[in-house]
């Protein structure tokens, strides 16, 4: 079977809805399936569970929290990553805090899905952020799948999780297709995936950049043996797997499409520097500090991490 990333998300939602009557979906234009992941859900599961919402992100996010506190397992689809800014209070100050603040009386099994995070060429400054590091800092479970199989499996686990989870589906990963010969299945949160083994350098690549890392690793294979490490979940991060990888390689490059300062790239470098084996100074490739993506495509692209930077960084850590 040929499986696209978007179709994988669609399947995950369909299977979760079919399996558990408590699962329901909120979002804008989801009845029409406009963004892809919710295609045909309304027909199959009806407006009682697939809820096309007015443009009231704050209220419907809080509503979903209220629903999650009372037995439902809501999924919210957000049309643009910056809508997460609009509901930051609801997610970080409410959903994330209920469990501890109530002394464990409740979880908040809420899933937020952002199909098309990061730059989509030509959508400009307010539609092109990749704010996953913000949620890792706040402590929400944060997932960025790179492949269709992972997208399926991680979204299933997110929906089944008793805590709020946010799933970023990078716009640049949506075109990825896979030939799937196995049964799709949930993939546990918090487990990294090593896409390619190597002995010289560990490249930690986030989301769509996994594919760039793999391409560069192939290309430089004659020169450098690169291990490609996909954390898949940014919080909780699979630190033991990273430590094991660095035991083998001792060298680290991170490629991460979020802003530089206080991004997940910083976290990986910091933790590695503090606790793991490094034989050379580590490197990271990120967006610049405080990036706002300009509209013009050349400018937009110039600020995203690219392969050439990765090549240079790999050669630099090998020196």
């Amino acid at each position, binding site marked *: 079977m040929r499986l696209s990333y978007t179709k994988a998300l669609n399947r995950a939602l369909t299977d979760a809805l079919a399996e558990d009557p408590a699962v*329901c979906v909120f979002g804008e234009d989801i009845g029409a399936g406009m963004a892809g992941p919710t295609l045909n859900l309304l027909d199959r599961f009806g407006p*009682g*569970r697939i809820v096309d*919402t*007015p443009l*009231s992100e*704050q*209220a*419907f*996010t*809080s*509503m*979903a*929290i*209220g*629903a*999650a*506190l*009372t*037995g*439902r397992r809501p999924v919210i689809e957000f049309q643009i990553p910056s809508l997460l800014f609009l509901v930051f*209070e*609801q997610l970080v*100050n*409410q959903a994330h805090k*209920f*469990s*501890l*603040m*109530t*002394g*464990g*009386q*409740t*979880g*908040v*099994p809420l899933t937020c899905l952002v199909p098309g995070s990061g730059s989509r060429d030509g959508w400009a400054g307010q539609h092109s952020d990749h704010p996953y590091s913000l949620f890792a800092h706040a*402590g929400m*479970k944060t997932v960025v799948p790179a492949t269709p199989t992972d997208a399926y499996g991680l979204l299933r686990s997110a929906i089944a*999780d*008793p*805590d709020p989870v946010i799933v970023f589906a990078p716009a640049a990963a949506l075109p990825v297709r896979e030939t799937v010969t196995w049964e799709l299945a949930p993939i546990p949160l*918090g487990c990294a995936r090593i896409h390619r083994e190597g002995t010289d350098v560990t490249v930690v690549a986030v989301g769509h950049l996994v594919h760039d890392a793999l391409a560069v690793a192939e290309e430089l294979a004659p020169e450098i043996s690169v291990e490609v490490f996909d954390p898949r979940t940014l919080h*909780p991060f699979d*630190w033991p797997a990273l430590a094991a990888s660095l035991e083998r390689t001792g060298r680290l490059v991170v490629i991460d499409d979020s802003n530089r300062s206080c991004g997940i790239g910083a976290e990986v470098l910091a933790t590695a520097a*503090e*606790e793991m084996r490094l034989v050379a100074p580590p490197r990271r490739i990120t967006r610049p500090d405080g990036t706002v993506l300009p509209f013009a495509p050349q400018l937009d692209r110039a600020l995203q991490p690219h392969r050439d930077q990765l090549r240079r960084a790999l050669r630099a850590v090998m020196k």
Partner: protein
Amino acid sequence: MTSPADSAGLGSPAGRYRMLRLIRGFEELALDLVRSGAITGGIHPYIGQEAVAVGVCAALRPQDRITSTHRGHGHVLAKGAAPDRLLAELLGRTSGLNQGRGGSMHAADFSLGILGANGIVGAGGPIAVGAAWSARQAGEDRVAVAFFGDGALNQGVLLESFNLAAMWQLPVLFVCENNGYATTLPAATAVAGSATGRAAAFGIPAAEVDGMDTEAVRSAATEAVTRARGGGGPGFLECRTYRFEGHHTMERLMKLHYRTAEEIADWREHDPLPRAAALLPDGLAAKLDASVREQLAAAEQFALGSEHPDPERALDHLYADGLRPRAGSTA
């Protein structure tokens, strides 16, 4: 640990009077404990507004749900929470409703449909709407009530939630406790138009009621709750009320001049307790007062005698699946 009363206890005038007194007495005790330093951080006292919580909760069934505010003790007690465990919560003890993790502003008892006080003004509104939606989804005839102040009328998320509740005809009752002020800001200089007009504009039946009169609140709430339970959609009550104390116990340490002494004295004339006592047979109120005193003395003893939590367990419950986050230091 005493067993929690349920909202059915509010079915008689005597039960309602007793609850008014319980809330009043609880708050007075809490004020003492703030003054003595036993309660850290202070509280937002509910004194003066008791008729709203009691009147509204008297219209509810045990399985109905509420969301509350920073000024939440009255709501939490009226919905049936055990005063001793609420007090233990304010004191940060493991026997508290939230095991000492929430404190005054987050007191909750999910087993009684109390989805929590909330530190963010307006935040409880849409959470109650979600609970109402949930109940309908589950085919249950539970109603949800959102309590909030006049200040919350200017929070966008609450206004958004009026629209969702109205559009989807959800079984939720919005209860605005208009005590005339948001901290120091008079409602008259903050709320353009009227509270009821604002709700009505979304197509929500809206009524204004004397929030110092328990029976008036109860009858207005009963009407709205009955309609909501029967599928007639949301309702809105504006309860005109007043807090006799400062916004927060911190206010006692400050010189603020936003209300006159006369205004406070005038409103004290409308104290809901004597009004509710007047409905009772001679001598009953005094008896109930005595039983509340006993109950609170026991609660105080229970709470002050309860254990402090173990700092080693500070991160317990951070994640519902038991995930243990990394510590703040590896050294």
